[in-house]
């Protein structure tokens, strides 16, 4: 699964730490998600969607083989 978290963060001038605090996870978890090493739960994806103010499908998208 691909994600645009890094792009969205950059657009909103938000650090990983800030996003982590606002979603209630660790900074390392945000980093792992950005690198595509960890897939977040639906709840965490929806929280990110709320923080960025955009729909979930604009942050996460399926790749071929998913």
């Amino acid at each position, binding site marked *: 699964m691909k994600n645009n978290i890094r792009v969205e963060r950059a657009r909103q001038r938000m650090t990983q*730490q800030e996003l982590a605090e606002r979603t209630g*996870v660790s*900074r*390392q*978890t945000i*980093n792992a998600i950005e*690198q595509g090493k960890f897939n977040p*739960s639906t*709840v965490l994806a929806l929280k990110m969607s709320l923080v960025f103010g955009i729909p979930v499908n604009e942050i996460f998208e399926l790749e071929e083989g998913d």
Partner: protein
Amino acid sequence: MKKQHLLPHSWQWVGLAALFLGLIPSLKSFIPFLLSGSDYRQIGVAEAISQFGFLIMMPLSAVILCFSREKIEDERIAELRMKSLATTAIIYVILLIIGPLKGIILGRLFSHRIISNLHLLFGHGWWMLFIYLLIFKISYWVQNRRYSNEK
């Protein structure tokens, strides 16, 4: 996110203290006693203290350490806990399978009494909690190091 029923993070210090209290007397006399080849059924008063440390404090510390939270307990850590638990279960099954072979292999090297005492030492299932703890803590440390640099 689902609520996790774990002890507070500060309990890890309690667990470490219990481990220390259990480990010191165990290392001091109980394990050397077992390995000496003496009959464990003839344990005296002096050994009873170390036995208390080994059989009560160490399992207690293992339970506390296994079921206390990390600083930030999120879903990545929950997944790590599940993977560590699965790996521990696999190790346990492997040990169960190779267990009966232990006597045959070690019987050529050590006396019957030492093998019997080794069985007492490793026959306790709570050792698996320490295996779980080891796998979990190493994975936790490795992952946190890997994902600590912000790109």
